[in-house]
């Protein structure tokens, strides 16, 4: 099997899904990128980061649609086209831009099915970039998926590797509910083995990337890479860390988390989002409410601080939860439970 980057996996999936179903269309700013230019190609770019490269050439301008800078109209049009029978894949270049189109996401697309009494279907996929680490500054670096996870009617996908990105994107495009597909920009060049043929990965099914006994580490998107590193490092000391990658935040595979905590008795959650009302808080609270009896130690959350993302590369590095911070949280939780075990035992 060939190694492919996340970027390649996504690009390939878009092409395969468009071939598979003529109702799939792609729209967004510069998704062809070259319309209205003076060179002889109308697809000069294929998206700012090349994610949609080749699609315009293969599928033409009525299925690969360059738009003006007009996020509300992009998302709104995707919603309307979906109600009218298409399966649009809209690109919201950076998730930070939800500020100019959230209404169409939150009050329209997400609610159509419910507020129309179950009689409307809105198979929209919104692809968007998340995350810090590229020096893109305070308005282009957010990991805002909690803001959309909280919205009823949306499904939210946060793939952590190329294999998952391909299978989850296919699922997203074939799903009849609206899906937010969050691509971490720092993962685009990460590669792993990815089959050429298409396949799907169900939503709401976590991936256990490391099996372990002593502590459960739930991590999202890019944080899964860091969590795996922590698990590998601690394994050398005989500390056995179970890493759970939920893959989707909504639906969330609660059972996988409960099962793991049932075994380990300890939980650390890693989330690149700001701390308040984060996925870290969500997962921690779920366990504190539903699996309290299993807990042998305080839960630990490792998140970005309650600050915007600074432009300075060093500050930005400090902003993102690091391997070191995750490791120390894991050690703290183990220590705490020793203390507790000692106290009660």
């Amino acid at each position, binding site marked *: 099997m060939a190694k492919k980057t996340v970027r390649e996996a996504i690009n390939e999936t878009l092409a395969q899904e468009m071939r598979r179903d003529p109702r799939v269309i792609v*729209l967004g700013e510069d998704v062809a990128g070259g319309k209205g230019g003076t060179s002889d190609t109308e697809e000069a770019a294929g998206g700012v980061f090349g994610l949609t490269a080749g699609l315009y050439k293969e599928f033409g301008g009525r299925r690969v649609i360059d738009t003006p800078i007009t996020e509300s*109209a992009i998302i*709104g049009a995707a919603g309307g*086209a979906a109600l*009218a029978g298409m399966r649009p894949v809209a690109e919201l270049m950076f998730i930070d831009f939800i500020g100019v189109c959230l209404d*169409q996401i939150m009050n329209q697309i997400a609610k159509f*099915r419910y507020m129309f009494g179950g009689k409307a279907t809105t198979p929209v996929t919104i692809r968007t970039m998340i995350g810090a680490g590229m020096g893109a500054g305070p308005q282009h670096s957010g990991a805002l998926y909690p803001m959309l996870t909280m919205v009823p009617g949306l499904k939210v996908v946060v793939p952590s590797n190329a294999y998952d990105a391909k299978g989850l994107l296919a699922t997203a495009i074939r799903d009849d509910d609206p899906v937010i597909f969050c691509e971490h920009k720092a993962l685009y060049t990460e590669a792993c083995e990815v089959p050429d043929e298409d396949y799907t990965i169900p939503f709401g099914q976590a991936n256990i990337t490391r099996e372990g006994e002593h502590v459960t580490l739930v991590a999202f998107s890019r944080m899964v890479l860091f969590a795996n590193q922590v698990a590998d490092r601690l394994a050398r000391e005989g500390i056995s860390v179970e890493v759970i990658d939920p893959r989707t935040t909504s639906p969330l595979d609660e059972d996988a988390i409960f099962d793991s905590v049932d075994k380990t008795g300890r939980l650390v959650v890693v989330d690149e989002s700001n701390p308040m009302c984060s996925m870290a808080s969500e997962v921690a609270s779920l366990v504190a409410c539903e699996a309290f009896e299993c807990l042998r130690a305080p839960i630990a959350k490792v998140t970005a601080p309650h600050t915007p993302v600074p432009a300075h590369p060093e500050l930005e590095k400090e902003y993102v939860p690091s391997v070191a911070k995750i490791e120390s949280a894991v050690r703290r939780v183990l220590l705490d439970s020793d203390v507790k075990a000692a106290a009660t035992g």
Partner: protein
Amino acid sequence: MSLTREQLLDGYRRMRAQREFDERMRREFEAGTVPGFIHLYCGQEAIAAAACMHLRDTDYIGSTHRGHGHCIAKGCDIGEMLLEIYCKQGGLCNGKGGSMHIADMNKGMLGANAIVGAAPPIAVGAALAAWSQGTDGVALAFIGDGASNQGTVFEALNLASVLKLPMIFMYENNGYAEFTGAKYHVGGGDIAARAGAFGMPAPKVDGTDFFAVHDAMAAAVARARSGQGPSAIEAVASRWYGHFQGDPQAYRSREELDEVRRSGDPLKKFRERVLAESWLEDSDMDAIDQELRELIDEKVAVAKAAPNPDTEALYTDVYLEY
């Protein structure tokens, strides 16, 4: 005048149904039988009627919070609408949407919408679907004078213009956005000119004149269906009642309201014209009036008596599968 007798009767019926419906809703609301709050369309009926006569079930409209008339004109079932306004099981949205969210995909009705300016991008999406698939379908968005100020509406205009979509923007200038007059809130004072700036035809017509709207719409639809791109129409017609039912309208003078009642009745104007031209007779229209009165009487009674949705309904239909 190129309208057949059938078309004239159809147009009249669509208008009368809207009038009868919202006048009845007004009385019911005052009597306290209607949940939530409602926005009446009285005075603007010719716009929806004349516009929707040109549309098929496979064409789409996007509507507003003041959507009863649009729904009726687009062919939504009146009984199911009433069930919805009363939030009952079997309503067009099974009671979860209410007056401000009535929708019917089978009739190309993309939903009333409680967010001002949200429907035009959605309707543009329906136009984009037709354009992408190469059908001759069209879409139309109703837009209030107040909504004409919302950024989303301009984005919809521009996207439709850039892609040359089969789209019609129907501005309904009824003079007010809630309690604030269009004279104040429309910068530059000319709503149609806003659409014109995107290079599309944008005539301004008397929205109480069924025939004027009908003609403008004929041109816009022809243009859209033949792939020539979007159009806009500004139809001017005063709102008869308050912003929502119960609004005391302290911002409107007695004289203005009298004048509206005197000169702002599209049904009266229609009747006068068709009689003067001898296209129809009083009895043609009286029969429709009678029929609709009975229909709505009956359907209101049914709606009031219908069962509420189960409590379980709170939790269903969030997703198709989760």
